[in-house]
């Protein structure tokens, strides 16, 4: 019967991307370290 996928520690209703706080396939919740972010090259002076 599979399993209840809502109990895997991912907020499937989130309006934001899950990948930015995805720390590991075996973590029970989002990463506590800073999320993934991209700084465009033009931000560097």
């Amino acid at each position: 019967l599979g399993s209840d996928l809502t109990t895997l520690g991912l907020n499937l209703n989130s309006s934001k991307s899950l990948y930015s706080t995805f720390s590991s396939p075996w973590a029970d919740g989002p990463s506590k370290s800073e999320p993934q972010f991209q700084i465009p090259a033009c931000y560097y002076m």
Partner: protein
Amino acid sequence: RVDPPGAREQVTLLLEHWIKIWNDAGGVEQKCVQYLTILQHQNVLKTDESTEVFLRIAAEVCVEFCVKSGAKAEGSDLPTLNYKVIDAFASMLTILVKYASADPQSLTSRVHLLNRILGTLHRVLVADSEGPRGARPMAFDQRPYFRVFANLLRDLTAPDPVVDANNLQVLGAFANAFHGLQPQSVPAFAFSWLELISHRTFMPTLLLAKPAQKGWMLMHRLLVDLFVFMEPYLRRSQLPLAIKTLYKGTLRVLLVLLHDFPEFLCDYHFSFCDVIPPNCIQLRNLFLSAFPRTMRLPDPFTPNLKVDLLPEIAQPPRILSNYVAALSYNGIRQELDNYLKNRAPKSFLEWLPGRLRASPSQAASGSASYNVASINALVVYIGSQSILQLQKSPQNTAIGHLPTMDVFQHLVTTLDAEGRYYLFNAIANQLRYPNNHTHYFSCVLLYLFAEVTVENSEVVQEQITRVLLERLIVHRPHPWGLLITFIELIKNPRYNFWAKEFTHCAQEIERVFESVARSCM
């Protein structure tokens, strides 16, 4: 391998020197570049061979040091590792890629050196995991290698003026490296491998890189690698703990993909269904329930929902998987095209079921006695040809009148129960988000249910029902097309569903049907 005399000592000294420079630099890259002069002075990077020797020995020394210097952790037989040396080593590799390639301003040159580095790490890792003389020791510690790859991913995918928007080349180098380290090749690294391919500096960046389809192809290949490894174990009813753990991690990764990149799962659904065993129903549903983010799915429980009036069902789905390949492989394609064009010769229909049987080696490996990939391909190909024919035919041409339906009906009547199960599965695999394939195959399945003409037709109807039901009774998600097809089956009096004997064959079955029907109606 026999190292050149004194090589290990030389490399160790160079590493010690690097660590000192790295510590003093406090993370400022420019301060570390002076180290390259030392390497050049010692001719370390002069030739491909000397570079390979340096990288290999450096990796071995750093991993060995890391593992040996681990501190015993309370309550665990595995030491907690100190990564100072490994982190320093990874930083050195980053500096080499950025500043020591033949032309540091050339992305191609950088990627060439990166490939060399990744290749060396691959070889060192494999040798370590196999142990001396291929003994495959149980003492292999994957963590230092995981750490090196993770650090390289973070540092080399960060924005850089040379890489700029062309990071697909860098990501491609990592994707190729991970393909080489796939679980089937290095099972002792599988857990780290899954974490690396789903790393937030890799997976989303690869899927967002331009041009989109190249990155998607690479990610698709890696996921197929994963399922090819797991498939033999997932086929069994009891999963060993290690596979259960790997499977749980896989589910999490797929949920991230389903949430953030559903179009990727949509466009490759065909090949993913090919590599998932038929008994993994929830897993398959995960792929099949993906739909484009711009789409709003009509509630399948809407009373009087007129599916054939939805604008989306006129649109074809994009299928990036090469579903035609399996047909060309065993000679079906040409004969099939001929039959669909001419509705002749009739002998084609007699010939076809035999061509769908598994080869002796496939059958010996314990999987199905049918070539399931061929059946899957045949179904989708027939469907796409059928839709083309319908578009060219006068409006209101019934699907039952097309030569494509001859093929379906013949297979239904001549295949045994196992073959029919795979056939219906292949059709049900197309019941996804609103598009013209979902609509067509929904109609086909319902048509086959209503028009089956074999003796004891309820056996076939029961089988169609079973294929739909087993996909519905598992935990969510459930594909939209699956729901609307089942609702139509149980609601439309044309199918006379509740009068079928199999709906009342046992109390448990009755309860299951009532429960599903209640939630549907």
